[in-house]
């Protein structure tokens, strides 16, 4: 009789995910007992649950790096930071959604459950140390998001958005899987640590010229480019972001990028550094194309939500710029740069607050039968409600990268990262497109403050939900605080980045 060996599993390391799974169960069951008018209780329960999960995640700071589930799952400072970012994003989204889904008449408890499912997928993705966990995480995250995008069942735009995203996403997942299969085929292992060992032990030149590996890199890059919505793989983005419920758009624009970036950093920098001459070029082109395409396309938009969608696409380009410049070759040796990885992490952190804030303003304007989606709807707001107008102005200035907001420090950090490793042209493209972006952000500011209201007698309708106002206050103060005193946050990102190496 063969002996059955039970692998040594440290369940305590996976405590955030386990507690999140339990939370999802609680939410779903609780939802059965709540009457349709009181669905916000389900939201409150999920919010409390997310805070608890966040607490468990934060207790994992500085215990790593440790792996479990036979090396499928890794915990280090990097994963803790990004998991916290995603959980904070989810918490703020839930807070904003409590009132919003009532207005949009999709007040179902399943909304919160779906959101939590996608968060689960993201957490698994951030801690993935294996190709199979990677795929598991991506799929869990994506399928839940597809459902969330199509959540407004009675709105044709939402259904179309969800379907478009789902179809293209499924295709992209297939491409990703093909790349994963090829990588596994060459190295014989799915674990990241094992693959890295196999690739680094052989001669670099022979590795780089292996057709299987080159093809695998191309497919992997293609799959991730879709997830991050990099040009020209971004075609699903404007429709998906515009059609989805605005809280889902806000959540998607930040959390999906954070999770995808996490696994990309692990995969490409830790596992495939030997192939960096291959994928650096690919990502360079993608980053440049994304920054240019996103900013130029946003100029033409009249729909504010679509404009913000293109703007978040261009921000993915800036983040990628920081990621691409992670590598430099010095005397034939690959030099990691935790300066660059920390710039990516820092930007994801402040982007969370800024982007949620910008979308939060859209949510604020959304009332019964009237969405503030068109730029024209915001005409003259600055005169009747200057405080809210200023709030939006600060979020827009932060997106554009104007001091003294957090967006400026983040962009500076990204450009510094690019210049440090001598990616000068990428930095120039980034800087110029960043200046261009001020045009369309400035147009919204102009419409709000410098143009008279369409009809002075018709007052602006906006939400007065305390949950939303509370969220906006938090986001605004974080945007300004991180712009004026970013030091502690930069130190945290530096610690997170250095834990990778």
């Amino acid at each position: 009789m063969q002996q059955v060996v039970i692998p040594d599993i440290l369940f305590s390391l996976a405590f955030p995910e386990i507690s999140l799974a339990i939370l999802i169960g609680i939410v779903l069951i609780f939802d059965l007992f709540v009457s349709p008018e009181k669905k916000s209780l389900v939201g409150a329960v999920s919010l409390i649950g997310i805070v608890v999960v966040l607490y468990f995640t934060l207790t994992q700071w500085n215990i790593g790096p440790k792996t479990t589930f036979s090396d499928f799952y890794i915990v280090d400072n990097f994963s803790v930071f990004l998991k916290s970012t995603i959980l904070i994003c989810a918490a703020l989204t839930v807070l904003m959604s409590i009132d919003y889904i009532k207005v949009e008449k999709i007040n179902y408890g399943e909304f919160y459950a779906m959101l939590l499912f996608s968060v689960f997928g993201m957490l698994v993705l951030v801690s993935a140390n294996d190709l199979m966990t990677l795929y598991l995480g991506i799929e869990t995250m994506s399928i839940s998001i597809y459902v969330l995008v199509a959540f407004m069942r009675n709105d044709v735009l939402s259904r179309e958005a969800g379907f478009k995203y789902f179809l293209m996403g499924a295709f992209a997942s297939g491409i990703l899987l093909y790349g994963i299969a090829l990588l596994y085929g060459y190295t014989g292992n799915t674990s990241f640590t094992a693959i890295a060992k196999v690739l680094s032990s052989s001669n670099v030149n022979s590795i780089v010229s292996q057709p299987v590996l080159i093809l695998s890199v191309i497919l992997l890059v293609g799959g991730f480019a879709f997830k991050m919505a990099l040009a020209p793989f971004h075609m699903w983005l404007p429709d998906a972001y515009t059609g989805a419920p605005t809280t889902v758009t806000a959540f998607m624009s930040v959390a999906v990028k954070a999770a995808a970036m996490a696994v990309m950093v692990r995969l490409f920098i830790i596992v495939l550094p030997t192939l960096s001459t291959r994928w650096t070029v690919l990502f360079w082109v993608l980053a440049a194309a994304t920054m240019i395409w996103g900013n130029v396309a946003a100029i033409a938009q009249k729909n504010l939500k679509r404009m913000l969608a293109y703007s978040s696409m261009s921000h993915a380009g800036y983040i990628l710029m920081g990621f691409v410049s992670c590598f430099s070759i010095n005397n034939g040796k690959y030099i990691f740069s935790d300066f660059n990885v920390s710039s990516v992490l820092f930007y994801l952190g402040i982007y969370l607050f800024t982007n949620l804030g910008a979308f939060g303003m859209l949510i604020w304007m959304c009332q019964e039968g009237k969405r503030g989606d068109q730029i024209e709807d915001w005409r003259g707001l600055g005169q009747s409600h200057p405080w809210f107008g200023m709030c939006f102005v600060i979020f827009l200035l932060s997106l554009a990268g104007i001091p003294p907001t957090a967006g400026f420090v983040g962009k500076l950090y990204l450009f510094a990262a690019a210049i440090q490793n001598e990616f000068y042209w990428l930095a120039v493209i980034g800087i110029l497109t960043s200046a261009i972006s001020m045009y369309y952000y400035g147009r919204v500011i102009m419409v709000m403050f410098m143009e008279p209201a369409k009809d002075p007698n018709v007052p602006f309708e906006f939400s007065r939900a305390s949950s939303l106002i509370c969220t906006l206050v938090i986001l605004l103060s974080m945007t300004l605080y991180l712009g004026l005193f970013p030091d502690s946050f930069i130190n945290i990102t530096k610690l997170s980045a250095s834990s990778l190496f």
Partner: protein
Amino acid sequence: MNNLPLLSLIIFLPLLGAIIIMLFIKKEQVKTIKMFATGVAFLDFLISLPLWTNFNDSEAGFQFVEKASWIPSIGVSYYLGVDGISVLLILLTTLTMLISIVCSFTAIKEREKEYYVCLLLLGTGMLGTFLAIDIFLFYVFFEVTLVPMYFLIGIWGGTRKLYAAIKFFLYTLFGSVLMLLGILALYFFNMKSGTGTLTFSLTELYVVGPKIPLSLQVWIFLAFFIGFAIKVPMFPFHTWLPDAHVEAPTAGSVILAGILLKMGTYGFVRFVLPLLPEATQLFVPFMVLLSIIGIIYGALVAMAQTDIKKLVAYSSVSHLGFVMLGVFALNEQGLIGGQLQMINHGISTGALFLLVGIVYERRHTREISEYGGLSKQMPIFTVIFAITMLSSIGLPGLNGFVGEFLILIGAFKKSYVYAAFAVIGIVLGAAYMLWLFQRVFFGKLENPKNENLPDCNLREILYLAPLVILMFWIGLYPKPFINKMEASLKRVVKIVDQNEASKKVAIIQDRISKVSVKN
């Protein structure tokens, strides 16, 4: 008393005032807002006076220094200081802010609360730009000034305000983000080959600057050049200026011409010359060419204008061409002249815009053809305009002459060709100014709308008076002003000329060795 963070107070007092107005004063209480804003600006001017009285003229380095650590992880510190280059600009800024607040009392009749808040925020930004020694801090304040100015032009501006506002914002933003590349290149050079630490503070970078290899210096110079040349504005980057000036409200134009343009020239003297001496030497012909084109082109285009404000805007281009000529003469007289002319331009062109604003408030037109023969109707106004105009031309006895004369000496020392072209500019300057004066003030009062125009009232005389007094003071007794600037500017000249000196030494040594070989 010595331990008071004077510079921080000067910078943040307007911000505090703006926040108080935003939070505690209702928009209906217009009089309170105006009084409060005036009070804040006056207080700010008063606390900036110790910078004049307690300034040590012989000290070339930074005085009243305040340093605190801000973002140590990337080497940014909260580092403020004043030296000869910035001290007069600070005083000019606080004075101009006070004057622009007072001059807007009757000019702005809607949304006053936001207006005065914008003006005060602008004040904070400008003061911070001149006082920052840490380049990151400088850049933050530099960009911060763009937003209130954008609002000033876009909300309270003229007919094409939206176009002018976004053009101003994007044009200057474009320049400053490219400058950011230069800053970062400098920062990383310092980390890799300089002191080895991440730092943005100028005192450390001044040491590293001359060590940068020429090829990198050229690129950094070009990056800074784009940023500052758009701000100055130098030809051919000046096209945003006429639109911004004409469409801005009076106070906006005064601040724009008086202070914001100086940030460009200040940037050249503070950053480009000391940090990149070899590249500066290399680019002198190019910069002098652009300055001279600016002088002559600005003057010629000014002559062709029919709108008084646009004429004054182009005269700014011409005058700042003079300043740049002085700066890039790279000798003591040129730099002192250029620096002094910065102040003079702020005073005289600021006064010109104020005067145009006065007459615009009465007639709501700036077309020269609408005026004529005003001297009979508004004698006090005519006198003040005459003094300002003569100061702008550079008549001896008034401030413009001192600055222009020093610049000409400096340019002549560099090459008499430069001085020749500059002199043409002076003549042209006199031409368009005198012609403007003649068309507007002399001749017959033909237009019936001009017949009952009220002369300057007490408030207007009060806010123009300080400028007129300064025009005479600097013109007749410039010594205290020049003394303040001398030490720091001498140091800049020394840094820039070091290479020239060492080249001369090398040439002399070469000749000595040849002579000794012959023997």
